[in-house]
């Protein structure tokens, strides 16, 4: 007849007390399971929505911090020096490489987009329905010997140059390599003229791996001089064509509506992926040749000559060091749950860069869930605290009636620990039985309660929003970047599904054990102070 057996006998033979405790635990269990079910449904919905949104963090220059630091500098020269230093701040292959070493990072996309046109001889973009109809390229002329003499206003190619080869597009946005390979880290460092083209683009131009594509990157200054700056002068642009070797052909799963594509650059199939710096390097080389050509032309005015000579000198003297300027990175994390910690870690670094998340839509639509989650957790805490108080009092009160039993057990040599254990087992067994019943009723009730709570929370939020919109009409128009998936309220609420999971039941039982443990604490202190002589002598 050990303490466990005694506990079972006590439960069986003191039925009125057992029923009272069972009912108390049953009610507690129902509240807790409903609270846990609703809370976990809200948290799950938030989590699933966040997963839908992808875990993209922006790492960019913190202009507010820069301005604040700049304002602190009193001396004008020093301040100027400070801002010159700030101008040098950018993401480099080295700094990005360090970020990629972070185990939480899955991919980084930081496209420097250069709009361009195809040479129209060897390479042609996939035209839009409107371009085909309106012959939008009419302004562009090709001479008899195959050189381009003018450039149209319609740019048809989007060159996306990246500082990494682990791109969000290929890791998460539905792009995949059909053949060939991604450019290497060495090719990024060397600004190599290699490119990845879409399968449709390749088919349109009969391209295979190793083929060349010929593009003319947009350069406003050159265009201006060619078109208007040099009267009566036509510069043949053959030299301006940039050559890229096709090393990879990709496909994507984007849905394209032909009616929405006005010109070539709107069509994702006209996107070309290259290492960062490759387009810029080729453009720089072209600029050098172009300036030399213009300077040597007869009849050019002195002012323009001097201006171009300065630019040429800059290139020749290596003063044009930066081929590109990259201030923002889009960092995709492997686990959306790491976002907050990642942002915190990267914001803590003592730099002028800050990590942010495009959370506006998520925050807005997950607000009802946040409210539900907080409300449920408050209910759970209140119920648990009340349960501890009630069970403690019940146990402490019944302890008075069991002093005699405790005295007997102590006199026959039972330890105080065993007596406390018996009380604990009695309560735990009752709690487990009551919680088993509570699980059954909780499963039935929690869904109804959860759905009602969501319905009420959404309707009350809508009323608040309408009031806000009246006063702040621009408040709910968050900016959405290319890497954050747009979500709606339905996206969030559709993920809200109140079910009682195994973890919920496990948490309920763990909560029960915790309630009992704490509830037994006060009576245990009383038992520890008991003197068997006093109990027994007073009862005798």
């Amino acid at each position, binding site marked *: *007849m050990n303490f466990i057996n005694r506990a079972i006998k006590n439960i069986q033979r003191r039925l009125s007390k057992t029923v009272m405790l069972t009912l108390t635990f049953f009610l507690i269990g129902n509240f807790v399971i409903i609270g846990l079910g609703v809370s976990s449904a809200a948290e799950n919905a938030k989590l699933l929505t966040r997963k839908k949104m992808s875990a993209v963090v922006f790492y960019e220059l913190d202009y507010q911090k820069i301005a604040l630091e700049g304002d602190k500098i009193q001396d004008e020269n020093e301040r100027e020096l400070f801002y010159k230093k700030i101008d040098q701040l950018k993401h480099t292959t080295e700094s990005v490489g360090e970020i990629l070493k972070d185990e939480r990072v899955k991919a980084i996309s930081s496209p420097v987009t250069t709009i361009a046109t195809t040479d129209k001889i060897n390479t042609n973009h996939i035209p839009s329905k409107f371009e085909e109809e309106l012959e939008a390229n009419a302004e562009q002329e090709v001479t008899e010997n195959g050189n381009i003499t003018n450039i149209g206003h319609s740019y048809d190619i989007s060159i996306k140059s990246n500082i990494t080869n682990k791109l969000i597009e290929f890791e998460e946005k539905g792009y995949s390599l059909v053949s060939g390979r991604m450019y290497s880290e060495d090719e990024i460092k060397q600004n190599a003229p290699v490119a990845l083209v879409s399968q449709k683009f390749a088919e349109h131009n009969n391209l295979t791996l190793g083929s060349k594509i010929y593009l003319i990157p947009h350069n406003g200054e050159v265009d201006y001089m060619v078109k208007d700056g040099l009267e009566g002068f036509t510069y043949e642009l053959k030299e301006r064509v940039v050559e890229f070797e096709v090393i990879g052909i990709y496909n994507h799963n984007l849905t394209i509506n032909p009616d929405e594509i006005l010109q070539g650059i709107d069509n994702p199939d006209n996107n070309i992926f290259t290492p960062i710096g490759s387009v810029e390097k080729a453009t720089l080389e072209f600029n050098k040749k172009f300036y030399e050509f213009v300077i040597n032309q007869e009849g050019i005015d002195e002012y323009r000559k001097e201006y171009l000579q300065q630019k040429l000198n800059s290139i020749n003297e290596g003063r044009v060091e930066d081929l590109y300027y990259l201030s923002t990175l889009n960092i995709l994390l492997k686990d959306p749950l790491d976002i907050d910690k990642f942002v915190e870690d990267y914001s803590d670094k003592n730099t002028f860069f800050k990590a942010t998340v495009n959370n506006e839509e998520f925050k807005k639509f997950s607000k009802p869930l946040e409210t539900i989650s907080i409300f449920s957790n408050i209910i759970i805490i209140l119920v648990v605290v009340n349960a501890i108080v009630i069970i403690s009092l019940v146990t402490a009160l019944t302890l008075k009636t069991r002093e005699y039993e405790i005295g*007997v*057990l102590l006199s*026959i*040599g039972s330890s105080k620990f065993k007596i406390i254990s018996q009380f604990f087992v009695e309560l735990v067994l009752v709690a487990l039985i009551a919680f088993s019943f509570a699980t059954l009723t909780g499963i039935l009730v929690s869904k109804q309660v959860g759905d009602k709570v969501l319905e009420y929370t959404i309707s009350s939020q809508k009323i608040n929003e309408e009031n806000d919109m009246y006063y702040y009409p621009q408040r709910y128009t968050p900016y959405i970047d290319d890497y954050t998936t747009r979500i709606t309220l339905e996206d969030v609420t559709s993920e809200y599904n109140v079910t009682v999971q195994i973890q919920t039941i496990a948490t309920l039982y763990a909560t029960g054990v915790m309630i009992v443990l704490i509830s037994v604490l006060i009576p245990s202190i009383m038992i520890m102070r008991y003197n068997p002589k006093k109990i*027994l*002598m007073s009862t*005798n």
Partner: protein
Amino acid sequence: MENIILKLDKLNYSYQDGGYERVILKDLDAEFERGKFYTILGPSGSGKTTLLSLISGLDNPKSGSIYFNGKNILEKGLHKYRRNDISIVFQQYNLIPYLTGLENVMVAMSETDNKLPKDKKGVAYALLEKFGIVKSKANRSINQLSGGEQQRVSIARSLAKNVDLIFADEPTGNLDTATEQEIVNIFKTLTKDFNKTVIVVTHSNAVSELSDQRLLLKDGKLIKL
């Protein structure tokens, strides 16, 4: 000397009572032999129950020592002493109310480190039967037993741990004369047949007259009668 199971050496006990120190036991010396039935007599308030609580390890003396089989019980530990060396029979029987007679006996068996037979239930039934509690009664809740039957269960429980020293505090105080006689006979059987030492605190002359040694507690000391 080897026959001495319990020795009390200069026991002192007092407590504060309204600013005065009330002395209960004063340099009390006594020896109790194995296999004997002792009764301790004394008027109310003489300190009989206090003495019993000290020798049964429920309380500590202010000074002095208690030796069980030659070992100081304080050094041994009072909890171990109560657990393995002694049993107590109370006037109110002190049985656990929600257990049956059998279960009450078995509780004591589970609370000792002494070697007991494997068939504890069988032993418990046998013990109860020896003291007139048949199986059907042994399985009843103790509330359904008479006072005499409850005291028999209590005595069976005291034997269940297989200890050599049994204390009893007014064990027949709530019983009629016939039952009192039966209980005293049981104590005598325990000493004679099982070589147990029984020390009973009582007011009853009828009980004390049947003991092997009568002791009177007077002025804080035990006097052999």
